[in-house]
């Protein structure tokens, strides 16, 4: 009885989590335009999607920005962690506080303030401003996921490497980085998904004619939702899923 209840409970939770995505995916293969009635299987909407220059551009933009922003943010975040860890306790706490404020800040505030700053310094909004903004809001997440790993690391392995004759960079790359890798990978993935997810900041910092998927969908919704968007959403979901699963498999293999 208890076991049955547990099963039902878990089933309900999973249903709530995945039913919407399931519905979306199913409807993306629907032949008609109806949101309610299934009229037959078709790849029609996928075809239309890939033929649409706008959608393909948006897809490309989204993933290029996400990957570049995540890579840059991970490197900057990692360097920041090295610096923060070397600080005295007082400065460390101040830095962590400064790092946490953007995390708690509402996206809308970040978006508008970035836009204002760009414009004030005479930088016209374009692709690069979006990328720069994404890097900016990703860095705190990277720091947050690497720093705890850094704390676990005993300083003695680094000293042991120096003791055995290694130069400082060699000791860092050969001894410390492999131990930090799980944190680095999760920081990267977090930054990547945050960037793909973002609408608000992108919306305020993008130049004319530059769309990511989220801004594109937003502008299309105003005209009316076409099932191509279901297809697009399915493609994004599957792409992100593939990236996350691969990254997890790789990091698991390394750990073993």
């Amino acid at each position, binding site marked *: 009885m208890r076991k049955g209840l547990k099963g039902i409970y878990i089933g309900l939770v999973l249903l709530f989590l995945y039913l919407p995505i399931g519905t979306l995916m199913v409807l993306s293969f629907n032949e008609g335009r109806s949101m309610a009635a299934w009229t037959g299987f078709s790849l029609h909407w996928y075809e239309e999607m890939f033929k649409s220059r706008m959608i393909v551009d948006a897809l490309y933009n989204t993933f290029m920005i996400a990957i570049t922003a995540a890579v840059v943010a991970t490197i900057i975040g990692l360097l920041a962690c090295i610096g923060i860890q070397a600080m005295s306790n007082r400065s460390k706490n101040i830095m962590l506080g400064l790092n946490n404020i953007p995390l708690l800040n509402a996206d809308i505030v970040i978006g508008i303030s970035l836009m204002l700053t760009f414009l004030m310094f005479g930088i016209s909004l374009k692709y690069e401003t979006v990328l720069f903004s994404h890097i900016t809001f990703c860095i705190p997440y990277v720091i947050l996921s690497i720093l705890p790993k850094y704390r676990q690391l005993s300083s003695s392995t680094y000293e042991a490497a*120096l003791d055995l004759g*290694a130069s400082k960079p060699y000791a860092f790359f050969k001894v410390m980085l492999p*131990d930090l890798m799980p944190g680095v990978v999760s920081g990267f993935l977090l930054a990547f998904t945050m960037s793909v997810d973002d609408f608000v900041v992108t919306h305020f910092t993008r130049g004319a004619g530059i769309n990511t998927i989220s801004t594109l969908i937003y502008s299309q919704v105003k005209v009316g939702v076409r099932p191509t968007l279901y297809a697009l959403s399915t493609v994004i979901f599957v792409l992100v899923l593939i990236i996350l699963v691969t990254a997890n498999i790789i990091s698991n293999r390394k750990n073993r």
Partner: protein
Amino acid sequence: MAKELIRLENISKAFGDNLVLDNFNLTVNENEFITLLGPSGCGKTTTLRIVGGFETPDSGKVIFEGRDITQVPPNKRHINTVFQKYALFPHMSIEENIAFGLKVSKKSDAYIKDKVKYALKLVNLEGYEKRKIDSLSGGQQQRIAMARAIVNEPKVLLLDEPLGALDLKLRQEMQYELIRLKNELGITFIYVTHDQEEALTMSDKVVVMNDGRIQQMGSPEEIYNEPENAFVADFIGDSNIVDGIMVQDRVVKICGTIFDCVDEGFGKNKPVDVVIRPEDIILSKPGKGIMDGEVIHNVFIGVHYEMEVLAGGFEWLVQSTKSFPVGSKVSMRVDPDNIQIMHKPKSHDEEAIALDV
């Protein structure tokens, strides 16, 4: 005559307001097993880290084979360290761990392979090359840390409480292992510990430290049998430290009773500190010894009975293989040889000055 290898000259080091080493001087000779012994916070680990190059002294010099290496970074010193928590590299196999130093110094693969094999044999872990670090027990990890340090053929091996995390039995085993290794390799060991038994068992020379200063330096026998001050006497082994009055040469009055001793030159009727080791007190039936008392406590601790005897207003710690039940009247006597007389420190500063000289 032993050849000098390392000399620490007037080293001082403070962390913030905390003066850890105060004008510290020490000479280490070639092929010596020297132990820095003291309570935590006495500056022993800092001394070791200064020799290893992980700390830079605020003032003073580190001389290694006649060369000033005070500012030389650790990776350029011909010195290797075995760290307190082993500090093995968890993502590398045992072979890779041991080979790390050799790879850095660009030795050939064949040489590295031979060396790793030799080092594993030396620490009795042959055939462990491919194993993972976390599949090893604490004692085995300790041995790998040793092997990793010694393959580089350092002139000096620094050991920072390497046995601290092991259980008693293993610790004793590793002590003999360390002595064997040192004799086989013929290199200098500088060993840091707070465990006095460890220090006495293994060392050629023991340096007792407290408050950033050397309290006494000498062979284990000297340190144990002739402590120079109350701190050393108290820290090394159990001891009874009592007030006494040096009546004249070779005669001391303790708790109102006259004892013969072998010390001279303290003057007449001078107050002194007297150290008597608990195993040196001989108990017998009342009237047969010098001072009578009563057993107030008795515990069997394996090798012997540990008793407390109230005599002359002082509770004496006595160790004996012969048990006297609690409440029984006994008489104590001590061989003149086993009474150690020390000057009374007049004040902390004067004590410090006396020790520096």
